[in-house]
């Protein structure tokens, strides 16, 4: 790649907790040389960089992220390298591997024959690293302890869970004792709790380790951010906990300082605030990983071992070392290691994990097999055609990961709001402090006011203590964690559901756009229909229909036109013998003439018969009827007299009618685009109940038609085969490419359907709508929580109820809001698109009109 070329690179980032963290990471990454744009994703725990790879230094990227308190869990490879003779070999390997794009650090130890490589999986692969070492002349194999992206992600999450669990184990008993001690003077507790528990110095001794231990992370992270001009919710926690603790210390050691006196020590606030935040983080870390279960499932599918034939011997090698052209052997029950073409054998393969197809698919010589699918019954051999990062499974994983690393437009708004939120909240906290200090306290304060969820009455609190309390409550209650999680958590769930059903959304914006579709345009041939015409009617003037079909097939036997081939195939399917004609002459645009068994045969359109002055008689009416039904009628004349008609039509796919019905039920306008003449096209549309027909459209004009519909103000999707329809797919708001098979990454369009099944178009729309419904629910909950609780914390209700939100109540509400958003997203698991929940009878195959084609040998369009 030349210098200056922009490339998208995804790096793992762990430790982010809210939208403010996302903004902080993005800003830090955008400061790194070579990075022009950074997009962090909270739920996927990664960041996408648009960067100049030549200029990009991954250690600098890592340093920038670590500096602000987050981690970069690179993929890690532990290798056994044999053949090293000393430090020179070490240097060669380190230099060669270190020069690979994406390698962050490499360490070779000749004494133990080992090498450790950390790398960015989006830029290089374990196979490429091993190949590089092998090419240097060393033997290399996995030590078995290497960490894939999946392992790294799991390790990073587990270490976060462990860290928060330790914090929780630290804060829970101390917090409990502090709370009991604080409440000792109430109810009957004083009768059986020892007095020292309520001693302020004892409470100070217990609270200090909580603030210095589990709460330390908030102070460190917020200071690291502030130094670089970045803020996140750690700052809210730090100021909240710091203020509560400072007041408590002042009231303990200098009770007459006017901060509320010895009875208003907020030790339990500082401790419980820490406890709630740590508990929230622990539960979030525990549950957040589950929203990305789908990608984990896909990664788990990646086979580890392949059996290949090398030098005539069967060898077991790591699956990522299979090369294109290798012959692989697969036994019943085994995973297929890479993509390939069956050479020998017969079996049924379970492809449900890739395509969503529930029934095993039969495979025989010449068929394509997909790596990661499971062989069920027989054994077979196949030739590897796509390996390593090129396999369908690897491409799907990359697509889903990329999709999860992108942001939906709705999320960008949420992130912007949340990014500015922290500053806004601090400004609000300052305003609240000034208001209650200079005006509110004098106007409304009543001694004896209560703190909700706290034993205190604010009898001794002064103007500063009261205003500070209001200000701190605003800081704590306003954390935008829920806002930051709302969209990415649901998008991860939605893209995962899609992947499970063979529907790949190329980004969060694709999900959002698909959910808003008003019109879906289907290309007729190959999309609504099988694209393969077949004989539907045979009419004979003398009643000998088989003879008419046989003679028509004889005429067309040498034709390469699809309609001609359909007639020959139709005759053979009916058991007729199709002999060779003695002579054959194609009349371009009209038909074909031939001689057979001493008879002159003519097969073609009306014009051909008119040119030869052959009377159609009763056949004229029949032909009109057939054409009205959307079929192509071809006339057969024998020895200068009309003998019959053979009608040919394309065949609808089995799922077409149901898909169209379902889309219409969802109030989506269905449009068919075709090169057919209008009468034929409308006949098909009538059969399917299609709303609008765009007929006689040349392939190159399809994009123009899409544009025209968009100009009507409609949000339009185009469904096509992804290659021929590329311009129209690109023009549409959402391009849906069908039947990608093993080439998912090559397809144009924002939505890629692995299977060639129209019901997946419906499933894609249903999945997108469901996902965006969850996004909206999450955002409503997250913003609703802040909208409702901030004014209460700021003391809006105080003049009426004389109660103040205590810091610990604020912390509990904050933790609950982000937990509810995460749980709402986890609840997406197990959901299936309505169209895929069974029910709905299969619609039998229906013949329809053939595409408008240049007149075949004997065509009659």
């Amino acid at each position: 790649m030349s210098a200056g070329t922009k490339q998208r690179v995804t790096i793992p980032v762990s430790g982010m907790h809210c939208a403010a963290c996302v903004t902080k990471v993005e800003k830090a990454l955008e400061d790194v040389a070579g990075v022009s744009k950074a997009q962090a994703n909270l739920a996927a725990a990664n960041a996408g960089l648009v960067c100049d790879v030549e200029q990009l230094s991954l250690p600098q990227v890592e340093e920038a992220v670590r500096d602000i308190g987050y981690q970069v869990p690179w993929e890690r490879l532990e290798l056994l390298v044999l053949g090293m003779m000393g430090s020179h070999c070490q240097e060669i390997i380190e230099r060669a591997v270190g020069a690979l794009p994406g390698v962050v650090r490499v360490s070779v130890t000749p004494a133990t024959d080992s090498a450790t490589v950390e790398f960015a999986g989006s830029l290089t692969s374990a196979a490429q690293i091993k190949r590089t070492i092998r090419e240097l002349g060393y033997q290399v194999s996995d030590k078995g302890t290497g960490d894939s992206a999946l392992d790294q992600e799991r390790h990073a999450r587990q270490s976060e869970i462990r860290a928060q669990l330790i914090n929780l184990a630290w804060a829970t008993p101390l917090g409990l004792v502090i709370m009991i001690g604080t409440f000792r003077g109430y109810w009957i507790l004083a009768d059986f709790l020892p007095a020292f528990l309520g001693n302020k110095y004892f409470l100070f001794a217990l609270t200090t380790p909580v603030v210095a231990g589990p709460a330390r992370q908030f102070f460190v992270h917020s200071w690291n951010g502030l130094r670089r001009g970045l803020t996140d919710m750690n700052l809210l926690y730090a100021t909240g906990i710091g203020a509560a603790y400072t007041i408590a210390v002042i009231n303990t050691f200098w009770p007459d300082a006017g901060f509320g006196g010895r009875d208003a020590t907020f030790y339990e606030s500082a401790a419980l605030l820490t406890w709630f935040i740590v508990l929230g983080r622990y539960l979030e870390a525990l549950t957040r990983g589950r929203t990305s279960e789908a990608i984990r499932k896909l990664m788990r599918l990646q086979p580890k071992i392949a059996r290949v034939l090398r030098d005539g011997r069967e060898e077991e090698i790591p699956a990522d070392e299979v090369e294109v052209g290798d012959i692989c052997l697969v036994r019943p029950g085994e995973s297929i290691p890479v993509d390939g073409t069956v050479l020998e054998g017969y079996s049924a393969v379970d492809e449900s994990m890739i395509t969503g197809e529930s029934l095993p698919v039969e495979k025989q010589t010449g068929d394509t097999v997909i790596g990661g699918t499971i062989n069920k019954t027989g054994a077979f051999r196949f030739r590897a055609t796509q390996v390593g990062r090129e396999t369908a499974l690897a491409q799907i994983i990359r697509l889903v990961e990329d999709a999860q690393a992108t942001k939906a437009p709705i999320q960008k708004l949420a992130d912007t709001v949340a990014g500015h939120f922290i500053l806004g909240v601090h400004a609000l906290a300052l305003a609240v402090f000034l208001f209650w200090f200079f005006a509110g306290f004098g106007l409304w304060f009543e001694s004896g006011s209560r703190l909700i969820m706290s034993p205190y009455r604010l009898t001794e609190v002064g103007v500063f203590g009261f205003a500070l309390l209001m200000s701190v409550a605003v800081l704590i209650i306003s954390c935008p964690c829920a806002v930051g999680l709302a969209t990415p958590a649901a998008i991860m769930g939605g893209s995962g559901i899609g992947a499970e059903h063979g529907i790949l959304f190329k980004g969060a914006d694709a999900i959002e756009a698909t959910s808003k579709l008003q019109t879906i345009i289907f290309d007729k041939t190959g999309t609504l229909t099988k694209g393969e015409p077949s004989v539907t009617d045979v009419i004979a003037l003398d009643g000998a229909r088989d003879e008419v079909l046989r003679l028509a097939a004889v005429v067309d036997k040498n034709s390469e036109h699809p309609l001609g081939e359909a007639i020959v195939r139709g005759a053979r399917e009916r058991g007729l013998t199709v002999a060779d004609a003695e002579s054959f002459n194609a009349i371009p645009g009209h038909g074909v003439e031939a001689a057979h068994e001493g008879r002159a045969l003519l097969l073609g359109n009306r014009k051909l018969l008119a040119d030869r002055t052959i009377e159609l008689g009763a056949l004229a009416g029949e032909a009109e009827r057939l054409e009205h039904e959307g079929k192509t009628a071809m006339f057969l004349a024998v020895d200068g007299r009309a003998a019959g008609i053979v009608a040919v039509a394309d065949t609808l796919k089995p799922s077409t009618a149901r898909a169209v019905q379902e889309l219409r039920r969802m109030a989506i306008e269905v449009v068919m685009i075709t090169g057919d003449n209008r009468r034929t096209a409308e006949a098909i549309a009538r059969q399917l109940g299609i709303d609008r027909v765009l007929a006689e459209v040349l392939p190159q004009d399809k994009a123009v038609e899409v544009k025209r519909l968009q100009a009507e103000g409609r949000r339009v999707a185009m469904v096509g085969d992804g290659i021929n329809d590329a311009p129209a797919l690109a023009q549409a708001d959402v391009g849906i490419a069908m039947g990608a098979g093993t080439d998912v990454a090559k397809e144009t369009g924002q939505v890629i359907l692995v299977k060639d099944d129209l019901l997946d178009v419906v499933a894609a729309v249903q999945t997108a709508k469901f996902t965006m419904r969850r996004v909206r629910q999450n955002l409503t909950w997250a913003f609703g929580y802040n909208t409702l609780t901030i004014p209460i914390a700021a003391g809006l209700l105080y003049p009426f109820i004389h109660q103040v939100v205590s810091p610990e109540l604020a912390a509990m509400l904050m933790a609950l809001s982000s937990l509810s958003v995460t749980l709402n997203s986890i609840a997406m698991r197990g959901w299936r698109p309505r169209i895929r929940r069974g029910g709905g009878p299969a619609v039998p195959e229906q013949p329809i009109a053939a595409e408008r084609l240049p007149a075949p040998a004997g065509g009659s369009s």
Partner: protein
Amino acid sequence: MPTTHRAAIISATIYVGVSLGAASTFLLITVLTGDYGWVPRLGGAVWVFVLSMIILMPVVIPRVKKGVANPPRAVRN
């Protein structure tokens, strides 16, 4: 002086200066307008200073960084 160091000093001067100004203004108002003790006056001034710093640091630092990295060019007539 390296650009980053220069940017850090300029921004620190701005946010500390403005925050001190805000805290002093707070102090002055409490002295002039109300019957406040010295604890609320000083405590309040410290809190105003802390919050002002927190609000100003993320606003000032990136702008100064940008300004130092891309100084406006002199226009020649």
